[in-house]
């Protein structure tokens, strides 16, 4: 494992101080109790089937000026930045490829996670997320329009509070659209966590953590599912499941996921439409300003001409 010597890495066997707090030693059942209160509301006040896409959602574009397109998505405490760069020739490849390629990279900020500090070098989880992101985006992009070229998509997760893959896919979809990369449809994603009978739509980090922990009782369903969809075309572009659950459960929650993916679409559309409107207004304003300037210049010119002629 190559170390980055430019930064202080700390001793190899350092551990988080949180290991010695009471919170750390909580048992599975205690953690489970904590997730839902008496009114069957979650910690942040949501219902079980309520996603963060409605009132805790924020998205914008064009925050990175050097990138062709960029997007920022916030699901309450999950914050993701994505930038898309111009197509460039595929490096280190001597074969011609008929289809353009997408290069995706997902990176966690070192301070993004609650439990551990993220290492500087990409770890297995980040690599897996990058692969999943590419899988999700590829079907949506018209790759035949830029043969032998690749488009780079970089996602940086600033804060991770659950559903980071879904947020990354949403952000990347928005950024690709913002970069005017031709696409077949808007791509959206949603994830949910399953613990026993309960289905947590758009889970937080605590819920995800518990969902992938194996319960003591044999045969309980648990796990996380993330699905990305092109809603207009009714196509699933990626489906990721981890944990252990019976098949009826998978097929049952698929409908929930489908619906959730659809509800995010208007959010994304709004941002894109606002962009167009803004762009249009800006151009109009620029044109008006240009006209004004030209009129002023012409007036000046006339004045000079008069003076010259007079002189």
């Amino acid at each position, binding site marked *: 494992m190559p170390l980055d010597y430019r930064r202080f890495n700390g001793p190899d066997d350092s*551990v988080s101080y949180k*290991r010695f707090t009471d919170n*750390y030693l909580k048992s599975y059942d205690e953690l489970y109790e904590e997730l839902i209160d008496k009114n069957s509301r979650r910690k942040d006040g949501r219902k079980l089937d309520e996603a963060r896409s409605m009132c805790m959602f924020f998205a914008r574009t064009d925050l990175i000026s050097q990138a062709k397109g960029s997007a920022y998505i916030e699901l309450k405490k999950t914050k993701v930045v994505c930038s898309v760069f111009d197509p460039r020739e595929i490096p280190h490849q001597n074969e011609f490829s008929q*289809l353009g390629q997408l290069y995706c990279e997902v990176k966690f900020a070192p301070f993004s996670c609650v439990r551990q500090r993220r290492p500087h070098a990409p770890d*297995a989880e980040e*690599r*897996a997320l990058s*692969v999943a992101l590419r*899988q999700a985006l*590829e*079907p*949506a992009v018209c*790759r035949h329009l830029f043969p032998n070229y690749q488009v780079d998509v970089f996602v940086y997760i600033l804060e991770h509070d659950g559903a980071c893959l879904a947020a990354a896919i949403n952000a990347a979809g928005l950024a690709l659209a913002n970069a005017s990369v031709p696409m077949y449809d808007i791509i959206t994603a949603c994830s949910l966590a399953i613990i026993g009978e309960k289905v947590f739509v758009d889970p937080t980090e605590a819920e995800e953590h518990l969902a*992938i922990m*194996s319960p003591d009782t*044999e*045969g309980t*369903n*648990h*796990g996380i*599912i993330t699905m990305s969809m*092109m809603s207009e*075309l*009714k*196509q*699933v*572009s*990626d*489906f*990721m*499941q*981890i*944990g*252990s*659950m*019976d*098949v009826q459960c*998978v*097929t049952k929650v*698929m409908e929930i996921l*489908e619906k959730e993916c659809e509800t995010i679409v208007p959010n994304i559309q709004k941002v894109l439409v606002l962009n167009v409107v803004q762009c249009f207004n800006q151009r109009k304003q620029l044109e008006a300003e240009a006209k004004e300037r030209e009129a002023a210049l012409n007036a000046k010119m006339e004045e000079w001409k008069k003076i010259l002629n007079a002189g």
Partner: protein
Amino acid sequence: MAGLLLSPTEKVFILHGVQDDYRSDGRSNIDYRPMELETDVVSHASGSARLRLANTDILVGVKTEIDVPKPDKPDCGKLEFFVDCSANATPEFEGRGGEQLANSISNMMQKAYHSSQAFNLKQLCIFEGKQCWKLYIDILILECGGNLCDAVSLAVKAALFNTRIPFVKAALMDGGNIDLQLSDDPYDSKLLDVGSAPLLVTLCKIGDKCVVDPSAEEENCSVISLIVGLTGDRKYYYPKDADKQQSVESKCTTIGMNGPGSVAPKTLKDAINQGIVAAKSLDEALGQALLKERQQNIGIKKHSYGFLK
């Protein structure tokens, strides 16, 4: 698949075959190709297996080491998968060429074995919070003729079934450090409970239909395949006369998609259901084969006939 050239006509031929449920090698859409399985082939590994599925050749070796358990899971052992795409398989794997494929397979395996309902890591515990077994599962791809994921998962399960972990005779606490005493006798060892270990089933979408066990040519024709990991059933892995193991419903431990295409939700559901059927029969066949082999090897030293036939 790497280095394989198919003309459009050949592709259409394969596609039409799949449509009529009669594939180019005579199978139907739900048939597997013949398999050859041999366990205990590598003498320096704790457990090993070699699986040949038509042209796909996989060798798996399991090495055991002692490690310190993770602080948040003090009573669990560790499991690690490494996939090595040998350049023998195709020249394209040379250098770092096979890295992406290797990564995706080992990721898939890691995810499939994540849940305790798939593989109980508690059986690898030696001394809670202090020491545990760590299994390094090294997967070597010697030849690839399509359907790597399924073959790898089968070979891994067989290798784990074959793995022997030495008994710990005594553990001495010495000022916070632990001194283990292991038996010198290699036969003084325990076997793992791998009955519920998951198998991966790849469903390759060709035209409108999904096929299991795609050959390299068929993989070339398809733009999307679905990989489903399903837990096995313990009852297939214990001799009939032993204590009755209850039959359990198999569960999904992982689902993933692979390839540049996308599928409709309904197709996805159908494919998952098709995967369950395939996984079940695969699991049963594997269990029978492994038990049969174990029975044959009791008492007599295994007659070894060259492992890369």
